[in-house]
């Protein structure tokens, strides 16, 4: 009897969960050159107005909402989060969406670019 009373109490304290849309992780390619990081993401069916890109605390989150589903389909959104190296400037991140492919360019600040260290004969 004690167990029963305990579980009831626990259920009352847990807050109501909001109904959330299922999310699907889109396929991505990540490339790096000495000047920039390039992310290509497959987001078929997503248009510019349904795309959200957040960058906070070194985490870049891409979210694409879809609204065209057949009646028997389960609706979902595309969502993926990336950890980006420190020092990437949010202001200089550029995004391009074409044919359902998102192209994100993250220019590297001077501090992250590889530097040649000269070796002087001593």
């Amino acid at each position, binding site marked *: 009897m004690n167990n029963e009373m305990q579980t009831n109490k626990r259920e009352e304290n847990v807050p109501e969960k909001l109904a959330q849309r299922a999310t*699907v992780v889109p396929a991505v390619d990540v490339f790096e050159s000495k000047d920039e990081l*390039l992310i290509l993401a497959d987001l*078929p*069916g997503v*248009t510019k107005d349904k795309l959200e890109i957040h960058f906070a605390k070194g985490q870049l989150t891409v979210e694409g909402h879809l609204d065209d589903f*057949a009646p028997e*389909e389960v609706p*979902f959104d595309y969502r993926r989060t990336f950890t980006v190296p420190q020092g990437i400037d949010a202001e200089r991140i550029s995004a391009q969406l074409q044919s*359902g*492919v998102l192209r994100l360019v993250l220019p590297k600040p001077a501090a992250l670019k590889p530097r040649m260290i000269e070796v002087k004969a001593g």
Partner: protein
Amino acid sequence: MLTRFGDIDRTFTAMDQLRRRMDRLFDEYEPARGRDALRGNLADEAERSLFRGRFPRLTLSDAGSSLLLRAEVPGLSEKQLQLAIHQDVLTMSGERSPDAPEGYVVHRQERTPIKFGRTFTLPCKVDPEKSSATLKNGVLTVTLAKAPEAQPRQISVKAG
């Protein structure tokens, strides 16, 4: 030559583990993604296995007088896609041009393959003359008009 129960049990456990590891292996290679991952309408395991792990992901639904096919083909243009219909067999093929920039280090590459082809049997015969296809935002929508003999027909119920 008695077979001990313990041995049989261990054999089946081992086979079970092997099967599970093989399943995981395929999942890692190409995890269910996109519309496939949440397909609620294809309850048939056989049908589902047809679509798993293939590019492009697609859904096929029945819209009464036509079949509606939607395929996810991000990054492709009309020129790179071919659709062929023969009676009730549909073949979708194409080539996705690689967009990996030269001289870049590859950290992750999930957007494959480059050349693809898929063939499957439609639930009924379709009329290619009356079918159309549009490509928008990386989604190909094909409306396949059902052949006259496959159209749904009303059967009137007479009071007896």
